[in-house]
């Protein structure tokens, strides 16, 4: 349906690599089982396997650990606890608040107290469960609202305020108050967390890690071992999915494996069992909200006070920037003139919640969409009209609550086009008539927009490096600081480099992320992979090209600008030469055929104390129209129809971009419908496997699922005119939740609907009665 090119069509002769739907650079290997993931790497002789020892209590004093039974079990080589750490026993996280192994207290069920090392995976796992923990239980806090009450925070609260929201609410002809709970989300990368640590000569280390951030793994491992960063090399060819779950969380696994290898002086691999992965690693932050809004009779917001309580779990991890991004995106696409947003970073006795596609953005956006939906129902207006009424303006009403001017706003024409192509108005009328006659099933429809800020909010992360090597036969290798997790980064980078050098796509190969090649790379996160690394690689390739152009120009007696590199050939006004021949000639003429490249995003700045500035280089936009049906007897629901119009700028690879949009949407739909994390009253995560935690399956995808790309290039100078695409489409799925609320409202005669997320059958049925 959204296949960008006719099935089985042979690619036509094309001039450029970018702009075309090249297959994923690993696709042929992946379908043949020949793509290597960490656990597939042939094991070095003597490799041992580690398994974690988990806390069974949500909060308590760790009085003692008895490892004697575990140590007596077959195959067991060692049991490591905090005392076995040669370096700092605290992980090298930003806030420095997380012990590598629990030291004198435990703070969630699943916290790792140590690891067992054994000859086989199953021996290690079996023995890990025989380690006896002596824990004196203490009261646990499991709910973010309780944490707010007790002022139990991982980081201090943050308030962003503009104008006089109290006055804006007081003077308004209409007011509403509300609250909402939105659940977290397990990443469920198909490849679980895995790390493989190999001790090398002279206390050097080689770490294979399935990670989005090799540089951080390097730093954490070095820190734990008490070594300089230069002693540790981290490599990752690809991940079997990341979604933010391997930004920091992969670091723990690598550190544990390295410590085990350090103690046993043997290579050690640690691959978490899926259930342990659920129990140990952090998830998307669950949020709780309270709000009060004033608005006029057209639905225009005149004042808003909003409280966001982020459930951060037991440590800070990335909760600061996640909660910040929620604050930044609590406007979504709408101008909030008089507004106060209070953000709490709640400490609870659960897994330490972490990055997940959108990184707080979804949790910020959903509440403003909830408020606008409620306003529309309170006034009896079409929610699309209320949304439109509140959009950022072009000339005025165009400054965000964090003082950034929105310069590239395309939402008004984008929404207008989607409204028309999805036949939204007609369908809304049809659905109304149909609902009136349908006794059990009610349908609903919603269009919601997305405006998502692109850049790491920590400005210094917005830098990247790359290396381009041209070999004497003309073949090209590129290496960059980004990581491949399925998003197609390596494919896009190869396309960009191919075009820069004017060679066919197949000439360029991308190699594994490796801290010994490009150092100090930022995490592949914040949708920034192609923007940063693609540009760095482009610059590296450009330097090689310019050297070659200089060489050709001297020989041909022309201006270097007249040397054209295209389609594997190099031409001047007087001659044409094959790329391979030129490279060979240049090599013999001692021209440097490789180069580095470096890029830093321009224009951005941001004061983290006042939360003001221009944290984002640009915004990515999109909108979705979703139609659903609910069963008023059971609360079950179905997504019936989805139309998406999304802005990726000029697409470097339409198939990959559409893949990100579709995949992001379905993942977002899962967050808001079937994916429910349930902690019991002891703080035990009861949904810790795919048997109990349900991500969308094939049957959940609507047959009508159409994606169109907005045709305009990025208005900022970005690689190939493109825009970042990893995260923004995730939030298009808020339209699913709003459509479900629309259907529930229809079942309630148009009344207001309070529906907590995820909208499981139980939550939908509850919403029909509140």
């Amino acid at each position, binding site marked *: 349906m959204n296949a960008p090119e006719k099935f089985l069509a042979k690619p036509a002769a094309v001039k450029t690599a970018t702009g075309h739907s090249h297959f994923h650079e690993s696709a042929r290997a992946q379908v043949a089982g020949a793509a290597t993931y960490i656990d597939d790497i042939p094991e070095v002789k003597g490799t041992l396997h580690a398994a974690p020892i988990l806390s069974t209590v949500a909060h308590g004093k760790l009085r003692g650990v008895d490892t004697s039974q575990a140590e007596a079990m077959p195959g067991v080589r060692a049991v490591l606890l905090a005392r076995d750490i040669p370096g700092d026993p605290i992980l090298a996280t930003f806030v420095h608040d997380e012990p590598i192994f629990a030291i004198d207290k435990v703070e969630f069920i699943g916290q790792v107290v140590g690891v067992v090392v054994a000859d086989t995976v199953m021996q290690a796992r079996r023995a890990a469960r025989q380690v006896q923990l002596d824990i004196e239980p203490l009261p646990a806090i499991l709910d973010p609202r309780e944490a707010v009450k007790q002022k139990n925070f991982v980081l201090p609260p943050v308030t962003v305020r503009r104008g006089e929201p109290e006055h804006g609410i007081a003077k308004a002809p209409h007011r509403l108050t509300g609250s909402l709970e939105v659940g977290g989300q397990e990443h469920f990368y*198909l490849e679980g967390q895995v790390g493989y640590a190999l001790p090398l000569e002279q206390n050097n280390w080689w770490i294979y890690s399935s990670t989005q951030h090799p540089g951080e793994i390097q730093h954490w491992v070095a820190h734990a071992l008490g070594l300089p960063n230069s002693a540790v090399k981290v490599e990752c060819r690809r991940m079997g999915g*990341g979604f933010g779950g391997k930004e920091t969380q992969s670091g723990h696994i690598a550190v544990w494996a390295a410590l085990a290898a350090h103690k046993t002086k043997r290579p050690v691999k640690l691959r978490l069992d899926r259930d342990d992965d659920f129990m140990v690693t952090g998830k998307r932050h669950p949020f709780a909200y309270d709000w009060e809004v004033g608005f006029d009779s057209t639905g225009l917001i005149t004042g808003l006070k909003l409280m966001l309580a982020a459930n951060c779990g037991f440590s800070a991890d990335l909760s600061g920037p996640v909660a910040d991004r929620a604050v930044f995106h609590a406007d979504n696409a709408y101008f909030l003139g008089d507004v106060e947003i209070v953000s709490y970073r709640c400490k609870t006795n659960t897994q330490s919640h972490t990055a997940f596609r959108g990184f707080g953005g979804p949790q910020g956006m959903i509440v403003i969409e909830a408020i606008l939906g409620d306003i529309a129902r309170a006034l009896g207006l079409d929610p699309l009209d209320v949304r439109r009424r509140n959009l950022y303006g072009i000339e005025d009403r165009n400054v965000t609550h964090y003082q950034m001017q929105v310069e590239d706003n395309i939402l008004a024409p984008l929404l207008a086009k989607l409204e028309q192509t999805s*036949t939204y108005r007609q369908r809304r009328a049809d659905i109304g008539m149909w609902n009136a006659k349908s006794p059990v099933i009610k349908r609903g429809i919603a269009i919601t927009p997305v405006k998502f800020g692109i850049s790491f909010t920590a400005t210094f992360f917005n830098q990247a490096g790359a290396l381009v090597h041209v070999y004497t036969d003309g073949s090209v290798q590129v290496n960059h600081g980004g990581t491949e997790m399925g998003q197609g980064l390596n494919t896009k980078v190869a396309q960009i480099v191919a075009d820069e050098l004017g060679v066919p796509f197949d000439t360029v190969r991308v190699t594994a992320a490796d801290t010994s090649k490009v150092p100090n790379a930022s995490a592949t996160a914040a949708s920034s992979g192609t923007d940063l690394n693609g540009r760095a690689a482009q610059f590296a390739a450009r330097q090689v090209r310019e050297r070659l152009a200089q060489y050709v120009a001297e020989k041909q007696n022309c201006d270097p600008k007249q040397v054209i590199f295209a389609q594997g050939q190099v031409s001047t006004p007087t001659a044409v030469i094959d790329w391979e021949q030129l490279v060979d000639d240049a090599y013999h003429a001692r021209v440097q055929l490789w180069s580095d490249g470096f890029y830093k995003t321009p224009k951005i700045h941001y004061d983290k104390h006042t939360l003001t500035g221009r944290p984002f280089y640009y915004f990515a936009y999109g909108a979705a129209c979703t139609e659903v049906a609910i069963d008023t007897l059971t609360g079950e629901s179905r997504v019936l129809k989805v139309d998406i119009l999304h802005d990726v700028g000029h697409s470097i690879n339409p198939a990959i971009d559409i893949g990100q949009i579709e*995949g992001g949407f379905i993942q977002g739909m899962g967050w808001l419908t079937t994916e429910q994390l349930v902690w019991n009253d002891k703080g035990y995560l009861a949904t810790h496997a795919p048997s109990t935690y349900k991500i969308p399956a094939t049957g959940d995808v609507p047959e009508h699922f159409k994606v169109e790309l907005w045709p305009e290039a990025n208005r900022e100078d970005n690689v190939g005119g493109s825009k970042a695409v990893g995260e923004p489409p995730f939030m298009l799925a808020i339209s699913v939740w709003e459509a479900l609320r629309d259907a529930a409202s229809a079942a309630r005669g148009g009344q207001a609907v309070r529906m907590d997320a995820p909208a499981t059958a139980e939550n939908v049925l509850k919403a029909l009665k509140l």
Partner: protein
Amino acid sequence: MREARASPNLAAIFVRESTILNRMEAKTIRFIRRGELVSVANVPPDRTLLEVLREDLGSCGTKEGCGEGDCGACTVVLGEAREGKLDYKAINSCIRLAHSIDGMALWTVEDLAAEDGTLHPAQEAMVQCHGSQCGFCTPGFVMSLFGMYQNHVCKNEPVTRELAQEELSGNLCRCTGYRPILDAAQQMAQLPPVRVDEASLVSQLEELAHKRDAMPATGAYLAPRTLPQLLAARAEHPGAQIVAGCTDVGLWVTKMHKQYGQVLDVTQVNELRRIEHYDNHLAIGAAATLTEAFEALVADRPQLKTFANRFAGLPVRNSGTLGGNVANGSPIGDSMPLLIALGAHIVLMSVRGHREMPLEAFYTGYRQNLLAPDEVVAWIKVPRSTPGELLRAYKISKRYDDDISAVCLAINLTVKDGVVQRASIGAGGVAATPVRATQAEAALAGQPWTEQAARQAGTALRAQFKPISDMRASAAYRAEVLGNLMQRFWLESQGLEQINLERFVMPASEPASTPWIAGQARNDNAGAPA
């Protein structure tokens, strides 16, 4: 069968395994792969096929995603010669015991491409449709597609979107949103065909079977071929762990870390693989797979098709057996409420003889039943459909496909002249065992079939059961929905359509939407100096 997940909860984490099992010798596993005989010796009886593939054979193309048969990353295809024909099944290798494939043909993702690297249509279509992103689920999808290729494309049956969704429901992908994979499923028939040389494979398998039949069923992995052999083995080795597809016991191994020194596999017993059709009932052998058993049930009662498809995913239905599901007796297993509503009986056999009882009488408590140490579940006898029978099986879960019921309710009424002649209702997820809803049945029997009667039956359902709250649903929700499902049944019995989202058809009132052209023009500026 693995509907009752043996979740490795923390209580289980501290179950101590005091005995180091005295391991018996298991015989060499032999199977055909890439046209060649593969022999693997000294494999413990409780070692999984995935472990043998990845750790013993170094075939790392097949992935472990969850280790419990729920994600499908480990999917491989098995071939069995049955009556001279090859029977292909996609199964989960992570919870399948390696010994169970002795005598079969095996394909993994590494076995499909030609020697020269030419991809199989199941693979090529995935490439062409951009069906892989991170690629970790891909080997499993490719193998499910290969299963579909052999079972449908090679038989000139079209692969529709609906069929693709059904047969891929046991494979999870977290990247793509599935659309390109569904496209690939529908497109692979357009690619140049590739055929398995079935004749030579069948003869290889028959030769293998011939050798194996000559050997006695002894040792650590007992896989008797006949019913008398099975009963003798059961009597002789009451301590052996019975497996009948292993889609639940597999989790006891991978998640609860149990070790079994001896395993008794019932799935090779010829008599018990049969499904026999009699005038008044079907006799489903305990070794018939869930796929085969549901096929027979659906043939008799077509309205059960969706319910059957919603039972786990295809790879689990292809391994798991109805007998195993019933013997396991999980209160959240979906087959029991249906079988109870259908009035099924269970037949137990031992060297001492056999006995038969209504299914609900078999269960004595949470995962407890009347099976004696020398007995096996042999048959499930299911009465045939009768005229005037109103039958529906409802399943409420968080996800439609491949999920476990929060509530399962199967209602079977015979209404004659507006009066309920017979009411038979089975319920799951509402008590410690699968149960018969006797109070609702009593409320209905002999009553006129009216909305009022349905309401009273709903009240009786809520009165009889005191469900628990857990991660699937609260007690209050389960109780409410029990009654509401009776209301749904009433409405369906009155011919109302479009009241159940399980088979909702999009109303066609809207004008057809404009065809959209996805993608966009190529970008001539890309790559130019910025």
